[in-house]
C-alpha cells in the first residue's frame, strides 16, 4: 500500500512541478499572459463552463456524434468483416477495394465530404462512420479468417453444422480481435469528431476549441485538450474492460 502510494506520488511529481512552474511563470508574466494563461485560470474556466452547462452540452454533442457514427460505421464494418471472412467469393469481390481505400487517412476525406454533404450534421456523422468502419472491418476480417483450422477440425469431428461452427467456434475465437478493432474504431472516431468540429460546427468540444483559438482564449483551448483527453481515456478504459471479458476464454487454456 505504502509502495503503491509512493509510486503514485512519484508519478504526480512531474505534473505538480510543471504546473507550479507554469503558474509562477504566468503570474510573474515572464511570457505574454494572453498566450500562456496560468493553470488556475484554466481550472476557473472549466468551472465556469461547467456551471453554465455549456461544457456538458459540448461533451454531449460530441459524444452523440461519436456514438451514432460508430454504430453506423462500426456495424457496417462488422458485417463486412464477417461476410468477407466467411465467404471467399465475397472477400474476392470486396477485399481488394477495401484494402486500397483503407490506405487513405480518414482526415483526407474531410474536404470531399464537406463538398458532397455540406457543413451540416450529415458530414460529421459520415466522417465518423468512415473512421469507425475501417479498423473494425479489418480486425473482424482478419479475426474470422485467422481462426485456427485446428479448432474448425474439432468442430467437424464433433459433426457440428456450419451454423454451429460459426456460432460456437469461429465467433468466440474471433471476438478478441473484433473487440480490439472496436477499440481502435472508437479512438479514431473520437479523433475525427474533434477534427470535423474544428472544420465546421456550431456545437461540440472541437467547436469550443476552435472558438477559443479564434478569440485567443487559450484557457478555453486547454480546457478542450483536457476534456478530449479524459473522454478518450474513458472510452478506452470502458472498451478495454469489455474486450477483456470477450477474451477471457484465452486465459483458461
Amino acid at each position, binding site marked *: 500500500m505504502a509502495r503503491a502510494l509512493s*509510486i*503514485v506520488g*512519484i*508519478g*504526480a*511529481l*512531474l*505534473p505538480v512541478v*510543471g504546473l507550479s512552474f507554469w503558474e509562477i511563470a504566468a503570474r510573474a508574466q515572464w511570457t505574454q499572459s494572453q*498566450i500562456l494563461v496560468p493553470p488556475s485560470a484554466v481550472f476557473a474556466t472549466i468551472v465556469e463552463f461547467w456551471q453554465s452547462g455549456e461544457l456538458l452540452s459540448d461533451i454531449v454533442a460530441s459524444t452523440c456524434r461519436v456514438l451514432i457514427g460508430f454504430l453506423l460505421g462500426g456495424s457496417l464494418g462488422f458485417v463486412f468483416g464477417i461476410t468477407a471472412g466467411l465467404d471467399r*467469393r465475397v472477400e*474476392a*469481390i*470486396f*477485399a*481488394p*477495394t477495401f484494402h*486500397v*481505400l483503407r*490506405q*487513405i*487517412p480518414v*482526415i*483526407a*476525406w*474531410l*474536404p*470531399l465530404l*464537406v*463538398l*458532397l454533404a455540406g457543413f451540416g450534421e450529415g458530414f460529421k456523422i459520415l466522417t465518423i462512420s468512415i473512421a469507425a468502419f475501417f479498423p473494425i472491418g479489418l480486425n473482424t476480417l482478419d479475426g474470422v479468417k485467422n481462426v485456427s483450422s485446428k479448432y474448425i477440425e474439432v468442430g467437424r469431428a464433433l459433426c457440428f453444422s456450419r451454423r454451429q461452427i460459426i456460432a460456437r467456434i469461429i465467433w468466440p475465437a474471433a471476438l478478441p480481435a473484433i473487440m480490439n478493432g472496436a477499440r481502435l474504431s472508437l*479512438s479514431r472516431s*473520437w*479523433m*475525427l469528431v*474533434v*477534427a470535423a468540429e*474544428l*472544420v465546421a460546427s456550431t456545437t461540440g468540444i*472541437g467547436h469550443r*476549441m*476552435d472558438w*477559443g*483559438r479564434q478569440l*485567443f482564449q*487559450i484557457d478555453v*483551448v*486547454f480546457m*478542450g*485538450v483536457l476534456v*478530449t*483527453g*479524459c473522454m*478518450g*481515456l474513458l472510452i*478506452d478504459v470502458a472498451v478495454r474492460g469489455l474486450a477483456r471479458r470477450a477474451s477471457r476464454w484465452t486465459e483458461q487454456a
Partner: protein
Amino acid sequence: MQSKGIYLPRGLLLPVAILLAWEVAAHAGRSGGVLIAPLEQIASTAFTLAAGGTMAVDVAATIARVMSGFVLGAVAGLLFGSVIGTSRAADWLASPTFNAVRQVPLTGWIPVAALLFGIGEGAKLSLIALAAFCPVALNTAEGLAGVSQSYRELGRSLNFSGVTSWWRILLPAATPQIFTGLKHGIAFAWIAAIAAELLLTSGPGLGSMIEGGTALFRLDIVMVGVCLIGAFGYAMAVAMERVEARFLRWRN
C-alpha cells in the same frame, strides 16, 4: 493457380462498378448543378497539375515536412522510451504524465499548436513530431523492458557501461518492437501532416491542395489530392517495411 486468376478480375468488379456509377452520376448531375466531377475531368486535372509542376511542389512539401517531423519525433521517442524503459525511477516519474498526454487525440492539439506557434511551419512540425513520438516512445519502452534477463547479465559480465550495453545489447534486442513503433509512427506522422496542412493552411502541401480545391468547389482537385495522399502514405508504409526487413535480416 486458377483461383488466383479469378481473384483479380473479381476484385476489379467493385471498383469498375463504383467508377461507372460515379461517371453516370457526374454526367446526370451536370444540369442539376451537382458538382461531382466526371472521371475524364479528374484525369485531365491530374495531368495539368503534374505537367504544371504544382503537384510535385505539394507532394515534395508534404513529404519533406513528414520526414523532418518524423525524424525529430522518432529520435526523441527513442531516447525517451529508452530512459523510461531502462530506469524504473524514470518510469515512475515520467510515465504517468506521458500516458496522460497520449490520451489527447492528435486533432485536439491542433488549436494549441496554432496558438503557441501560429499557423506556420513550427506548428506543423511539432504536431507531426508529437504524432511520431508517442508510438515510438511507447514501443521502445516496452521493447527494452521486455529484453530477457540473460542478455542484461551478458552486458554486466562483459563490463559494458550503461550506454554501451544500451547501444550494443538492449537496443538490438528490442529492434522488432521498436520497428512496430516506427511503423505506427510514420503512419501517424503522415495523418498528422495532412491534418495540420488541412486545418492550418499555409504554404504548399497535399492538405493545402485539397483545402484549396474545396474553397474553389473543385472536386476534381480534391480527388486528385485524396488519391495522392493515399498513394504516398502507402508508399511510405512500404518503404518502412523495406527498412525493417533489412534491419531484421538477422532474425531469419
